[in-house]
């Protein structure tokens, strides 16, 4: 297929993924999806490899092809089916991310020609804490586990599956609305693929998908070949007992790259475990950042990569390890470690560490009218400074890019008030280019409610680079009766009216020695 036709198909595929995202955003019910845009849409080929994605959330996207391959291996799929899954070990990421996958049969082909994926973070999937983002010892405590099951079979909603799901969550009405939005999104994707196939033919579209992966591979190989051959190591740490280690060895040889995670701590009895799909997402993200906007974002990017994972480590946990925070916290540290090693290979190119946490905050309880609610959000922080300039302040970094919820929308919907939302002065690392500032967000409870925090970089601040200083680590506080009490990095607390929760997020590391 010539490069001209290919570029035209790339536009179409990406536009389809983007349109799915617009449908999902505009029809969803929960603040986390409609305001914060905590979702991702992608297209896969018939073997489950990712063909195109919309620029949504990196931690969702890098593992899309694992998702589809699990489902395709486990289920017989027919036209009009939609599969639902959240099991992290069978195609999911962590339990709140509920993924819908719809096989798309084009032009009378007997095997699915393509697949479309809409993955969205639901504000509750049951389990031990409202918001399903707590720190536990087994995955069973984290919420309802959904293996690959058909939520729609041959075009008809499977009410039994929906009922089972809704019976296990704290906010069934909102979940049902979000699920409807995801269904609308995958239907839109399937419709657009069918229109394209009517014009170009299914076989030609499939060829285009494969050729785009080849193009991405060629682009990545050209980039890797430009990195000097060599071997570099880096170790970074998570919070908690014995500071669990994330160790990586990066080996560049010609246009191939090895990421070897031997030396990582063994699997933890906490939700900070990452698993293969998350580690792969982090690797995808780091490689994609080395390229530019022009390289198509698809599974071809991963072809030059040899990912080596030790058995049962903090980056390769298996069932039934808990993983809720591996997705949001450990994924960030894996990126930090990969960039820490790459900085040695590419001095003058890689920036210092960004905040390295997503600062996950969830609330649950009852509204004034007695209706149950759950709410989840993540908070921005400082960006690491780099050779080009100072780090930006108050932005989301690396594996997430969700928005904040407008204070006016938050206060109108939940029995909480925001007392302060501002930059955290002097939190960025010093340097010729200083790191970005973290943020301060202070919540006041207006009713009795339960709050959970999952965070890291509360002990060790994000590192500086090339002589730049580290940023200040984040801090969590409870303010009760006018007294401020420090809280641990991960905690669940019951709030009474008037209690305040204050989160101070980490800054970004500095770059270059100060004069």
């Amino acid at each position, binding site marked *: 297929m010539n490069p001209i036709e290919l570029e035209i198909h790339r536009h179409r595929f990406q536009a389809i993924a983007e349109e799915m995202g617009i449908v999902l955003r505009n029809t969803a019910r929960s603040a986390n999806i409609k305001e914060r845009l905590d979702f991702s849409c992608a297209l896969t080929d018939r073997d489950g490899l990712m063909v195109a994605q919309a620029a949504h959330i990196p931690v969702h996207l890098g593992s899309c092809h694992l998702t589809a391959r699990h489902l395709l291996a486990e289920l017989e799929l027919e036209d009009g089916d939609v599969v639902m899954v959240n099991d992290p070990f069978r195609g999911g990421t962590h339990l709140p991310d509920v993924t819908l996958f719809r096989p798309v049969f084009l032009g009378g082909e007997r095997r699915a020609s393509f697949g479309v994926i809409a993955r969205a973070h639901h504000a509750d999937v049951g389990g031990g804490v409202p918001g399903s983002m707590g720190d536990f010892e087994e995955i069973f405590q984290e919420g309802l586990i959904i293996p690959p099951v058909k939520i729609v079979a041959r075009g008809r909603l499977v009410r039994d599956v929906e009922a089972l799901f809704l019976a296990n969550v704290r906010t069934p009405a909102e979940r049902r*609305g979000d699920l409807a939005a995801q269904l609308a999104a995958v239907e839109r994707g399937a419709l657009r693929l069918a229109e394209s196939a009517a014009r170009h033919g299914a076989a030609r579209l499939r060829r285009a998908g494969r050729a785009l992966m080849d193009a*991405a591979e060629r682009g990545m190989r050209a980039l890797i070949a430009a990195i000097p051959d060599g071997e570099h190591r880096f170790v970074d740490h998570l919070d908690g007992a014995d500071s669990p280690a994330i160790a990586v060895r990066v080996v560049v040889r010609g246009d191939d790259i090895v990421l070897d995670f031997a030396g990582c701590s063994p699997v933890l009895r906490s939700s900070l475990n990452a698993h293969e799909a998350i580690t792969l997402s982090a690797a995808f993200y780091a490689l994609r950042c080395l390229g530019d906007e022009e390289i198509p974002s698809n599974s071809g990017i991963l072809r030059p990569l040899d990912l080596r994972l030790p058995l049962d480590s903090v980056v390769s946990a298996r069932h039934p390890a808990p993983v809720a925070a591996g997705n949001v916290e450990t994924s960030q540290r894996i990126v930090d470690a990969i960039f820490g090693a790459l900085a040695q290979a590419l001095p003058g190119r890689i920036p210092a560490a960004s905040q390295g946490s997503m600062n996950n905050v969830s609330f649950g309880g009852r509204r004034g009218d007695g209706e149950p609610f759950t709410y989840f959000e993540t908070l921005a922080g400082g960006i690491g400074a780099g050779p080009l300039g100072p780090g*930006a302040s108050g932005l989301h970094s690396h594996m997430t890019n969700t928005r904040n919820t407008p204070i006016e929308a938050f206060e109108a919907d939940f029995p909480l008030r925001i007392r302060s939302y501002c930059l955290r002065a002097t939190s960025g690392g010093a340097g010729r280019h200083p790191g970005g500032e973290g*943020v301060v967000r202070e919540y006041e409870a207006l009713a009795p409610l339960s709050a959970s925090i999952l965070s890291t970089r509360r002990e060790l601040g994000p590192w500086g680079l090339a002589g730049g200083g580290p940023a200040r680590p984040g801090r969590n506080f409870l303010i009760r009766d006018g007294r401020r009490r420090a809280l641990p990095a991960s905690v669940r607390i019951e709030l009474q009216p008037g209690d305040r929760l204050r989160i101070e997020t980490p800054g970004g590391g500095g770059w270059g020695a100060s004069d």
Partner: protein
Amino acid sequence: MTRERVAVGIDVGGTFTDFITADGAVAKRPSSRGHPGRVLAEGLDQLGLGGTRGLSLAHGTTVATNALLEEDLAPVGLLITEGFRDLLALGRQNRPGLYDLEPRPACAAPDPALIAEIAERVAADGSILKALDLEAARAAAHRLMARGAESLVICFLNSYRQPAHERVLAEILRADGLAVTASAELAAEFREFERFSTAWVNAGLMPLLGRYADDLRRALDLGGRSGRRMVVMQSDGGAIGLEQAAREPVRLLLSGPAGGLVGAWAGAADRERRRLVTFDMGGTSTDVALLDGGPPVVGRAELGGRPLLVPILDIHTVGAGGGSIARLDRGGLLKVGPASAGADPGPACYGRGGPATVTDAHLVLGRIPPGLFLGGSFALDEAAARARVGELAAQLGLGLERVALGVLAVAEATMERALRRISLERGHDPRRFALVAFGGAGGLHAASLAARLEMPEVVVPRDPGLLSARGMLQAPLRKELARTVLGRALAEIEAAPARAFADLERRARAELRGEGLAAAEILVERLVDLRYPGQSYELSVPLGAAGRSGEAFHLLHAQRYGFARPEEGVELVALRLRARGPAPRVRQPRPRRVSGRPKPVESRRLVFEDGAGTCPVYRREDLGSGQELRGPAVIVEYSATTVLPPGHRLEVDRRGALVIRRAR
């Protein structure tokens, strides 16, 4: 006074300013950033109207747009609720580039030295948690002015629900003679960042637009004894008076393109043709919009990375134009744009060492006759175009013409994506719309794009370069106001619409009366913004009798998103009032009727996807209404070129517009 006196429409562009009178007399002057009033006065002189009293002038200007895009706003003093000083810097916390190693926020943060936190707080239900200390706030405002602020903006949380604090502070500061924008006064809608950002941009534009208005008043002798009045095109396709424009300049950000849309509607729509997609292709970018029964207005948009909560025509812009650069990327794919060769060096064919561009590809394929560009006043270097495109061809290992066709196909893929975004993605079937092409390059791609989307016809209006100026003449005075009313019952509004809309209507009418409209001339349209309970994105529908607004919403939701859930009921988010005066009548110039076959000015070799051959080139001024042509052919005029591909026929309609359809 009525607007029948409107005499001159003026489109102030980046390079030239175009003038047109209601009778069709035209003038053209080079634009001047420093002396906008002088350029307008010169244009009136050129039209022989230099001394005429009682003129009504209507103009569109890019002065606000340029200031925003070039970050050239006046220093703004920000007065914001205590605890939230960095709210504008924080924005929505997301980064625009997902995979940037060193990401930057979408827009620059305000100067921290010009921010004052004000002790006050309103709760989400509108109750006052902490009363405003007016004197302390006033003192803070004056301190910001002393530190160099030229304009002030008041941004208080939940003011959309309870604007009292913003209002009293604004009043006292205005009484002190200061330029003030209060967030809820401009847009009484929820989501603080979007509302504050809109107000902050307005405040940053006020000093600039104040000087601009003064310059126009002086140079044109507006108001008073001269009886000359001036209105300005807003982003929503309606006009407002110069005074109000200077007070609410954020309403002018799409002033120029809005004129184009109004002009396109006036120039291409008729009784049978009520659905249009406009396609305005220039040197660096292409603007597209969908007009279903009239120019479309939305309540939110984004410009220069800043969200804007003011009524704005729904125009989608993509970075593909005649100057878009073609090159190969690392993976070997052919890329076109968004980088542009600009005016200098310009495309390779300008002969100043520029790169291969879309324009060069057209030249290689014979579609732009090099001797007839800009009426023959600017010779194009065909050899340079062939050389640059030839280099790409060598890299790709394909033939020269094959690659030139490929450059056009890739550029058209970007444009097709834009057209799909505004039509199919919003539930509109393009097969029911006509494509209206204007701008210098619109006619070069229109027929090919229409075929890709199965659109039945292409219309190239007369004088495509003057469409915008004519649009200025045809815009009614207009005022749109919205107010968020979360929690109110829709049935209550449907039962007593006049009472619910009384405040908005009073304000809109007062402002339009201030522009000289008689009460009886003002038309009022009431809309409601609705959503399903729990959603965040609303759809605007006309307010109907009991239950009707909800029905309209379910229909629209199904059309746009593929499903509706009437059983869940609807939630009322905002009341929206559109008030406007009558549309001014403008005489459309009648082209002469001609019979017989038109004579080509030359013949040249044209290359298309399915073959090449020698084809005629016509001058547009040689074509008269009623004449027909069969493709392939090229039609040239002073500032535009239209390609009639093989398998298409062209007819000149009674207004002089070119109408292209596929031949049966």
